[in-house]
């Protein structure tokens, strides 16, 4: 098993954290993991992304050109990364901010209105968690409970008040997938 995942969005949408959480979770589950952020001049704005590999084998290139999954949180990210998904791979689109449809036909596309759901939950900042929940549910790269275990590593211990809202968002994202899949069936 080797999952090569790209998370992408605006700076400030928490895409680096999404990747980190999966990386920690993968490590906790005894997998080989690697996380590579985009980095550039410090100036904010523009696109941020990270590459995450979770694998049973040693991790080769930390830079992903053939992704098993791609998560795009905004429109420019879709434009840039759609082509990175391998045939048969998965593409997660944050439809709250992306008005375009995916063009590829050879991949599985998940449309998640992450910001809208986050808004419903009362906090726009947790759109990334909604998306992450969906991603975990759809891919099963790691278990949801390991993801929950990983949260404090990324957000800092002692921020328990944040945890419950994050968890809630994760589960909402996951539910969405369940219902989608149910729908499909």
């Amino acid at each position, binding site marked *: 098993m080797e999952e090569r995942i790209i998370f992408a969005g*605006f700076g*400030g949408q928490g895409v680096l954290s999404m990747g980190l959480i999966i990386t920690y979770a993968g490590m906790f589950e005894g997998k080989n993991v690697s996380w590579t952020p985009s980095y550039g001049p410090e100036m904010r*704005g523009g696109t941020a992304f990270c590459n995450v590999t979770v694998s049973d084998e040693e991790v080769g290139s930390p830079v992903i050109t053939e992704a098993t999954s791609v998560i795009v949180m*905004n429109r420019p990210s879709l434009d840039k990364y759609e082509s990175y998904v391998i045939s048969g791979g998965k593409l997660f689109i944050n439809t709250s*901010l992306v008005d375009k449809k995916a063009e590829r036909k050879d991949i599985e596309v998940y449309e998640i209105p992450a910001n809208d759901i986050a808004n419903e939950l009362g906090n726009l900042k947790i759109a990334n968690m909604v998306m992450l929940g969906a991603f975990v549910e759809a891919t099963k790269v790691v278990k949801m409970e390991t993801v929950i275990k990983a949260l404090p590593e990324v957000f800092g211990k002692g921020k328990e008040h944040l945890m419950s809202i994050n968890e809630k968002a994760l589960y909402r994202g996951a539910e969405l997938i369940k219902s989608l899949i149910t729908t499909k069936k």
Partner: protein
Amino acid sequence: MAKVIFNEDLCKGCELCVNACPKKIIEMDLSKINVKGYHPATVKPENMNKCIGCAFCAMMCPDTVITVIK
């Protein structure tokens, strides 16, 4: 009568213009997200007539978003 024009797609939502406007008529348009991903600054049409064309907003805007006409 004066008027301000925002080159919306350049706006980064920093609110320095909001802060600078003596008439307090500039606000962020929460209904929009521009290509850069920000809520852009705007003056509601109903408030535009309060603009005195002082150009304080434009002078504090770091991104040359604003043109002022009088």
